[in-house]
């Protein structure tokens, strides 16, 4: 019985020491559990008038799903999108929930200001914005990397601008085209729209994108993010 008691006390002590060993050996960086999101907002041509609905989707769909430690960056798609100036807002949430809430409110104000701005670009450099976004997402080293493109997905590059993706350009990135509105030519021939979307899908998957989604409903955005976490 005494032996049993001794072994009991030894096991209880071991249980107490075990967490200490785990703490010393099992520490890992938080980044692999974090989510980095990039929202690309098209401000060119006819899509520029969608600014307000874009901002509303980001505010109501993306920002509330962010948890402490997550990243969000807003990049505009204009004539030459591969430019640091196109980054209109960055958000890295604090690990304290109260601070994170304050940051969310502050970022929402920034988004409102962006929606109020009436600037409009002549050309649509989607690829440049995607490359800028990809670079930013990779730099965060987050475990989940998501790219939301708010655009009609019709690219019109300014003469002299060349865009080609690296083979691993979108490695580990899930891409979703949001709020893709149909243009006049799309309405007259749906195949034009379908082939455009298909072409994008082929292109991003060819360059190592993890997934592609062009039919995501704005109300499903929270579920989409949770599913990819």
């Amino acid at each position, binding site marked *: *019985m005494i032996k049993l008691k001794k072994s*009991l006390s030894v096991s209880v002590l071991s249980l107490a020491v075990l967490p200490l060993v785990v703490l010393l050996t099992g520490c890992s960086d938080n980044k692999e559990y974090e989510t980095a999101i990039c929202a690309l907002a098209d401000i060119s041509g006819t899509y520029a008038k969608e600014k307000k609905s874009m901002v509303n989707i980001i505010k109501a769909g993306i920002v509330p799903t962010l948890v*402490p430690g997550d990243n969000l960056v807003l990049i505009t798609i204009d004539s030459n999108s591969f430019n640091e100036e196109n980054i209109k807002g960055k958000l890295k949430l604090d690990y304290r929930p109260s601070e994170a809430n304050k940051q969310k409110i502050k970022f929402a104000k920034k988004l409102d200001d962006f929606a109020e701005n009436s600037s409009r670009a002549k050309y649509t450099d989607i690829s440049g914005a995607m490359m800028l976004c990809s670079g930013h997402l990779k730099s965060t080293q987050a475990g989940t990397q998501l790219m939301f493109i708010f655009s009609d997905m019709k690219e019109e590059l300014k003469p002299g601008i060349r865009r080609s993706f690296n083979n691993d350009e979108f490695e580990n990135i899930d891409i979703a085209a949001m709020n893709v509105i149909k243009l006049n030519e799309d309405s007259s021939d749906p195949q034009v729209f379908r082939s455009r979307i298909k072409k994008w899908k082929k292109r991003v998957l060819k360059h190592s994108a993890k997934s592609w989604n062009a039919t995501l409903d704005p109300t499903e955005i929270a579920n989409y993010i949770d599913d990819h976490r």
Partner: protein
Amino acid sequence: MSSLYIWPQMPFLSITVLVIASMIFLYLARTPMHLALESLSDGIAGGLERTAEWIKAVVIKMREKNKKVLLESSIAASEEKIAQEFKRVEASYTKHLAEYPALHLKLDESITAIDADFKECGQVVPEAPGWNDAVESIASIKGTASGDRVIEKMLKELHKSAVDGEKMALSEMQKVSTKRHKILSSLAPVWKKIQKTMVEVNKRVELVLETSGKIENYMQEYDKIRTGGDDSIDMLSSKATKLFIFSIIVITVASFGAFVNFQLIALPMSELVPAGTRVLGLHVSDISALVIVTLEIVLGIFLMEALAVTNIFPQIAGLTLGKRRILLYAAILGLFFLASVEAALAVLREHIAATNAATTQALAGDVATGTDSEGSNITVIGQATLGFVLPWILAMVAVPLEMLIESSQHVLSKLLILIILMIGYLVGIIGHILSTIMKTIIHIYDAYIIIPTQIENLLKRKSST
């Protein structure tokens, strides 16, 4: 198959020739083939049979060892229980019988008082003076009947004195009687006091006897265990299994309680311990919340140890009463501190949840309606109460935890024996099946060469006749 045909264009003939040739070959090789098949059967089935026997022998040894361990641990537990009961008896004697001398003194005093009063009551009532005898003597004097005036006067005086004397005696007797009644009436409270004292004495003695009775029961149980009969083994085994099942149920419920407790403090802990690192995939804040919950359980273990409810650490059991008391107060203080922290965290959690909801509403563009203040107060009070009460409930886990650890040794060993026994039976069955298959193969072999065998038998019979 067609490659085996001697004449591919005549399959039937080829098969017939092959069958006859194989039949003749197998007939000729009958004895060595039988021996080979029997050796194979003996090798496989016998090996498996021996393995099954070995497993059974191992199981018997394990059972014996398990029995021994169960008996020894039960004997030790019984001895401990009896020793504890003796300590209780000692304490009971000290507590309940310590005042016995005082009670006895009180009783003595009361009895002495009664005795004195009784003696006082027993005093003889003063009798009237002996005038009657004097009157009788005077009456017998000669001349009393002649009407002698002197005597008559004397007698009258005597009569008067006698009457007065009687009156005085009566009054004296009434006085004494009143006094006796007074004394007797004063005896009533003393009797009551004695009765009360006796009831108290009886109560204390009963308490002592009750504790002694418990020891008697334990001793009977101890004797039964020491004999180590099958009945006592079965009783101990069923007791251990019952304890194991109950403790598993209680621990499961307690685990849910710990989970609720963890959920209650995990979110607010992220406010207090914000960190960008994780341990085994868990936030440092979650680890901190887990540490608080486990600390509560650990303090609960120390609390129960200090109260001598459990006996996990022999070192604590061996501490003096004073040191145990210090440990008890430290554990209570620690638990109170953690419970208070949890209550505060629960309030903070509600605040964070409300802020989160308000932020989400604001982001969605809704006008914040605000929560009903009364409702929110009830939630806060509820969560704070839960946060304060849960640690104390979790502290009780020490008791089923000790029960689980103690009983699991026997139950797990029993389970292991059962598994090994099942493997043994399985091996035995496989051995038996293989042996039967080998015998069947030999019979099929004999059936295949039945034609040459029958011819041989026929020839043998002919040659013998």
